[in-house]
């Protein structure tokens, strides 16, 4: 499929699966020309608008650049620009709240990961665990209300599908090196509805080029657990 060559995008982030994942998925699904930059860090920190990443640069033929930061903001901008967020304000807000909740859950995951004392780690883990359980419950309820067709809303790949998938990818693929037991913790909590959504997102034609260079989340979450000997 011919990509839309104007505008072009640069996404600056670390070379890892992290909070920029949703943006990468949206750029891919939007079928625009985009590249990733992995600035030397922390040397390039002062050269970023807010000293942090991700950063999205939208380049135009007339050499004007539009630069924005903040992962959630970048996702919402791309999703609106390329039609993945509904134009209906209520529907849009309903999808956005799912992303914000997933982001809170991920922040809690990081808190328990970096906790110094065992007491803090246990307390933070309990918070992460609670947020994840609630998120799974709300997501599954919405998938069911939508007819369990592999989408949270409607029958096309949406912003909600993408960001929901992205946060599960960050945790069960991106974070495995930092916390080996995370798959064993998260996988049993995933409902069949969520596994169906994850599989459907990966199978969506809009993401076929993205999937040629990305690890599969579906492979991780559908892998049979070894039988206990």
């Amino acid at each position, binding site marked *: 499929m011919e990509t839309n060559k104007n505008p072009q995008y640069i996404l600056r982030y670390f070379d890892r699966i992290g909070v920029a994942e949703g943006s990468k998925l949206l750029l891919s699904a939007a079928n625009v020309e985009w590249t990733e930059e992995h600035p030397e860090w922390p040397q390039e920190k002062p050269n970023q608008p*807010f*000293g942090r990443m991700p950063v999205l640069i939208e380049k135009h033929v007339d050499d004007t650049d*539009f630069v*924005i*930061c*903040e992962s*959630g*903001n970048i996702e*919402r*901008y791309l999703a*609106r*620009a390329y039609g993945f967020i509904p134009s209906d*304000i*209520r529907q*849009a*807000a*309903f999808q*956005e*709240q799912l992303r*914000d*909740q997933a982001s*809170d859950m991920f*922040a809690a995951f990081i808190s328990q990961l970096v906790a*110094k*004392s065992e007491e803090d780690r246990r307390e933070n883990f309990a918070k992460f665990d*609670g947020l994840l359980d*609630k*998120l799974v419950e*709300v997501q599954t309820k919405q998938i069911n209300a939508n007819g369990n067709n592999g989408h949270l809303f409607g029958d096309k790949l949406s912003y909600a599908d993408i960001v929901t998938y992205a946060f599960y990818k960050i945790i069960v693929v991106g974070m495995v090196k930092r916390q080996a037991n995370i798959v064993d913790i998260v996988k049993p909590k995933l409902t069949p509805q969520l596994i169906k959504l994850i599989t459907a997102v990966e199978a969506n034609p809009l993401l076929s080029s993205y999937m040629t260079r990305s690890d599969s989340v579906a492979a991780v979450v559908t892998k049979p657990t070894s039988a206990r000997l």
Partner: protein
Amino acid sequence: MLSGSDTVYVLRYFDVIGRAEGCRLLLTAANASWTEEHPEWPAEKANQPFERLPVLVERSNGNEWILCESLTIERYLARVFGFMPTDLKQAALQEQMADQQADLLSAFFGQLTATGDMKSKQIDEFNTLFDRMVKEHGRILSRSSSKQHLFGDQLSYADISLYAFYKLFIVYLKCYQSDIAEIVKSKLTPEIINLILSIEKEPQLAPHFSKCDTMAAIFTAKDF
């Protein structure tokens, strides 16, 4: 305005400034019909969609619609009541500022709860981020046609969000850290103080100050 005249809102939160001030200011500026509920906590936790607050309840034509997450609620109200630009790029610039401010709140709690050798590192990070935020506010203001508004010449989501942000740090967070108000005040430029006080004087926000104090008394002649 995309809200019917028979639409009423209920904002559920704790009886504190906290994370709901932006929502309160937006509902006030919009001249919406709204009330606040302070659910018994944690008794009412299980009755909230995500077991957290704030929650926005929108009632119209006998229907009830519920939204969670403070920033999602803010962006929704801003769009419904015309405080968010319809241009995607302009909206993204305002939302970015609000998201950066939210990061700063996280950094505040990070440095508050850090212990050992992480403590001074987190405090430095918080201070660096806060200084950068003030600089960013100043940069946006310097490009604005009006010194009373961040974007354009009317009250916008960004103005309300900025006001709520500084109110949080100057009026509220001292309940967690007694010296934070003074630390933050010392970082403010006269331009930012002027902006805060100008926003406060917006006629659309007047009803808000029948329920709480203005910040005007907190800034003395020395701050200008």
